[in-house]
């Protein structure tokens, strides 16, 4: 069995709601925006795990929290991939125990598995580890500095991390990264500026910027949603190639189920800070169990006017993560909401070996 590169357990990212002066004098409770509210999943080595959901459901925050670009407020994120040495794992575990943030037996288990708890890692160590955990951003039109040449953009991570003994070595690494990202020959692209290349090539620059540090785990946040449909699959194919060649593991974040369907191995459907259904891609898309998943699948536009399918269009928009409804958080928009859904939160229920769903409809069936 392949090892889990990433293990997320009960991860929470809450942001405090700022209180006004008067409010701070009253004993009113601190309110929180619960962007990510207790989610768990694992990503195996060389696996593509996809988080799907509407904007504001917390999928990007999850990706950032794993890399600690956003500080988690609860739960755990364990990483067990390239870039770790037994000494480092041990040191991280001892430190966590000494700071009394982790129990001794848990720390011992981590050491045995060769995993580190990302949450308690010291800042400097996290920075070093982040070379192995990189992020690809959504918008290649906005995430690249327009005043920097492509060479400077791709070389920047090396400079920041003090890598590469001299300029010549850096240049070799930049060229290699550009070549890996499919910008060939690299010398034709190196001295151009972002506005001089096409959208697809810009996203390749973004990918090269992540590759230059030789990572093992990549968080790809909507890497193709800003691109024309005709070039999307080229970028996706590139990412698949890189997995083969470099043994990369991906967390892929998207709102587009069509892309998730063709690209990922497993899918997690997120709604308002929680995963409501998780399973192998084919199983989830062909046999969705949660009403939200069913609705999402039904509204994906079909590229054929002859295909008329019943659409489940949910009324309204997602509620605010600062005011999460009680019970099942999907119940105000759910066409099948029952009494229990309004009061009690459903727990995950396995419908097959790897496929689970959090919904009272399923639990009811299972009980009978």
């Amino acid at each position, binding site marked *: 069995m392949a090892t889990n590169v990433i293990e997320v357990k009960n991860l929470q990212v809450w942001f405090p709601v700022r209180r006004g002066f008067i409010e701070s004098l009253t004993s009113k409770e601190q309110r929180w925006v619960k962007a990510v509210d207790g989610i768990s999943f694992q990503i195996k080595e060389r696996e593509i795990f996809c988080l799907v959901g509407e904007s504001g459901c917390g999928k990007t925050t999850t990706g950032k929290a794993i890399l600690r670009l956003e500080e988690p407020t609860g739960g755990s994120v364990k990483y067990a991939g390239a870039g770790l040495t037994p000494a480092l794992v041990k040191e991280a575990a001892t430190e966590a125990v000494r700071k009394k943030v982790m129990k001794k037996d848990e720390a011992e288990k981590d050491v045995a598995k060769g995993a580190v708890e990302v949450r308690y890692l010291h800042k400097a160590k996290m920075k070093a580890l982040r070379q192995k955990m990189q992020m690809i951003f959504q918008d290649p039109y906005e995430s690249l500095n327009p005043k920097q040449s492509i060479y400077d953009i791709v070389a920047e991570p090396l400079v920041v991390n003090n890598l590469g003994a001299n300029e010549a070595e850096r240049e070799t690494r930049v060229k290699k990264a550009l070549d890996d990202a499919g910008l060939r020959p690299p010398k034709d692209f190196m001295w151009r500026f972002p506005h001089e290349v096409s959208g697809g090539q810009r996203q390749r620059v973004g990918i090269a910027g992540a590759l230059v540090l030789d990572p093992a785990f990549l968080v790809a946040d909507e890497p193709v949603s800003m691109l024309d*449909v005709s070039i999307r*699959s080229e970028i996706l194919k590139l990412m698949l190639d890189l997995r083969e060649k470099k043994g990369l593991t991906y967390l892929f974040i998207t709102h587009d189920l*069509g*892309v998730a369907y063709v690209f990922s191995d497993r899918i997690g459907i997120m709604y308002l800070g929680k995963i409501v259904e998780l399973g192998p891609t084919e199983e989830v898309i062909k046999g969705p169990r949660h009403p939200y998943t069913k609705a999402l699948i039904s509204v994906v536009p079909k*590229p054929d006017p002859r295909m008329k399918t019943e659409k489940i269009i949910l009324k309204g928009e997602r509620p605010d993560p600062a005011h999460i409804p009680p019970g099942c958080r999907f119940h105000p928009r759910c066409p099948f909401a029952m009494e229990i859904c309004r009061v009690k939160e459903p727990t995950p229920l396995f419908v097959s070996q790897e496929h689970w769903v959090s919904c009272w409809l399923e639990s009811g069936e299972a009980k009978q």
Partner: protein
Amino acid sequence: MVLLEVTDLKTYFKTQEGTLKAVDGIGFKLEKGQAMGLAGESGCGKTTAALSIMKLLPANGYIAGGSINFMGQDMSKVTGDKLRAIRWRDISIIFQGAMNALNPVKRVGDQIIEPILLHENVDEEVAKKRVQELFSLVGINPNRIREYPHEFSGGMRQRVMIAMALACRPKLVIADEPTTALDVMIQAQILQLMKNLQTELELAMIIISHDLSVLAETCDLLSIMYAGKIVERSSAVEVFSNPQHPYTKGLIAAFPNIKGDRKMPASIAGNPPNLIRPPTGCRFSPRCYMAQEICKNQEPPLIEVLPGHFAACHFVQPKG
């Protein structure tokens, strides 16, 4: 009744490097109540075509040839007050990234009242009432007209923009990438709304998108644009069921089909050409898998393959 007839429209831009031929001889007809999709990759000239019809081209852009016949008037020649009278009253546009096109410091209601007061001889009370009607038409609570844009979510702002486009009861609405920045669920809501409005108000629409699947769901007619030219044009069903041009075939194949097998869709290799110096012959030939010698030298005419189905490729033959 033909509402809009565009013939051989050419829109060029003056740039430092030379003349950029963004739209280079396109033509189509649109009848009352019909929705036409205009599809193509970014930079193919689809937005420029729309702006030419509205006559909203930037200073360095000009209509170099052809005609735009809208209800008996040639829009390419109309200017001044006459033009201002047509704009928004007869033709309106929902801009790309519309959610950000609203003025952030003005109440949404006032922003919609403005064109009504400008175009029609009504007092503010009547206009306000109209705005409230428009809001309920597009599915927003009419009491929200005094709110500011930031109080609306992205999907709601898009609805406001649609309400604004309908303010003066136009006959033709142009929607430029109306759902591109929206989530799938909101996209489905907006597309359904547009489809309903189109039938209810007998609106003619031109919907511009790079996403063929969006057009497949909303349009009766479909035109595929490549590098400033229409390469294929027919009814939407016909284009999807019987695509003729290799580019159209490529675009259709580029979609992941959630109902079909799980396989990576094909992509079209290469990039769209530079429109200052477009390739000779067929403009798609450098990216085309079936390109021959003739494609590099000779431009293919737009021929009628089947009644009402046009395609511009050397390898399509009219079928009896």
